[in-house]
């Protein structure tokens, strides 16, 4: 616990920057792989919006990937934080 208390965490804006940028990189890679295998034109009849152009499909696909990777990044960062102390443990001191 002492070690955790001493650990300095990155400030919040920078943390968001880190998550956004790294998830952006991953989303770029995922978009590349996904759309090089799948042609959005072939999906035309499987999706409810057949009038979407390829360009729009790529862009929307990219942002969906980014959303996914960013959410998982935010969750991962949140979960690396120490949990709040249990209420019945806090008054305990090493006197």
């Amino acid at each position: 616990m002492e070690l955790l208390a001493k650990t300095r965490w990155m400030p919040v804006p920078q943390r968001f920057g880190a998550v956004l940028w790294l998830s952006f990189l991953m989303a770029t890679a995922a978009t590349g792989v996904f759309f090089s295998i799948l042609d959005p034109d072939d999906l035309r009849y499987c999706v409810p919006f057949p009038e979407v152009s390829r360009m729009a499909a790529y862009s929307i696909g990219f942002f969906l990937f980014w959303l996914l990777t960013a959410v998982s990044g935010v969750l991962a960062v949140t979960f690396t934080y120490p949990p709040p102390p249990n209420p019945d443990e806090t008054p305990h001191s090493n006197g």
Partner: protein
Amino acid sequence: MDDTSTAPKAKATAASSVEQSLYEKREKIYPREVHGTFAALRVTAVSVLLGLFYGVCWLRWDGHQAVLFDLPARKFYVFGLTFWPQDFLLLTLLMMLAALSLFFFTALAGRLWCGYACPQTVWTEVFLWMERKIEGNRLQQMKLDKAPWSARKLRIKATKQFAWIAFSLWTGFTFVAYFTPATDLLAKTAALSLGPWETFWMLFYGFATYGNAGFMREQVCKYMCPYARFQSAMFDKDTLIVSYDEARGEPRGSRRPSADPKELGLGDCINCTMCVQVCPTGIDIRDGLQYECIGCSACIDACDDVMERMNYPKGLIRYTTEHALEGKPTRIVRARTIIYSVLLLGVAGLFFYLLGSRAPLGLDIMRDRNQLYRERGGLIENVYMLKVLNLRDAERAFEITAAGIDGMLVDGPGEPVRVAGGDVAEVPVVLRASESELPERSTPVTFTLRAADDASVSVTEGAKFLGPGR
């Protein structure tokens, strides 16, 4: 003598303030302008790289834009080469090549990438240059920022913002010009008839440039860059790093140029803090190797300049290795560099082999989905749709043959299929076979696509022939 005793203390406070500033609210860094060998090298690198980025999208090649990632048509043009989605492996190999080169050069010479080639460095350099041209040198900039708002300050700040935004928009335009032909894009921009996604990506990329190079700057390297965090894994004691020669410099202290440092008990560092003032990430290189150091060597240029004026030998801060600083020999050939170069050569070899042996044609076979098979005139009939891809830039004729079942009849286009350069033709082909030749429900067959003018250019793909079975 006083200087001698205070030096370690000064060093300690400098170190702790650097440590604190890491996670403190960020204070704007005003890097001082620097001239010298490495600054010239960086300006050259920046000019070449930005020249390529802003220039290449205007080059033409064989009637198309030389480098164009035509996403709507799913084709990438790179000068004489055309890449298709099925060439994805090549792209992956190219990425691996880039990563391995980064590892290799990092192991050899440290953060060369960060100091000279990273887009973050390159664009920040340009934004800093504009800032300097408009707001003046470091001291003038600091004074202007401290001064209360006035008409003059507003005018200067507005000019800077205008220049930055204009440059960012041009950058965004150039980025999109690699996906939509530049000349079309220019015409569309002039006519204000850009598509929604083109507009969006232009603004998105422009905004990213503006934010990263104008405001976030070294924050990107400190907090956001994965390479900055991992590069230390590629370092060893033989890697070139920008380093302060502590043995020679300490104890640091100011003195008159005429004074003899030995008499004063001082090292060669005159504690002028030039190396700190020029640092774009705001660190003190004299505190040792730090992960914030992007290896830009601005401090080398600054320090060499001071050493020259003091008539001391240059190189108090220099490119060196930990081994060299310890007085041991530096090895360039070592396990790490051998492994990286072997991997690099292997992947490069595979990449160029695959690139050279790409078949200039492709065949996709789809079965008719409506019917598995039908019987007609005592024969079993299967219908296929063949996608014939001409991966060359020029028109070509192709012959289609099929094999796999004895006595099978092929009812295809009859004559060679002409496909325009870089185009796809859909060709229906009907196969007929006698039921007596079909012992199973599914019999493998093959289709062969062959260039009419060159029999060695061919591709064979397998398919299934379905029947009633026995």
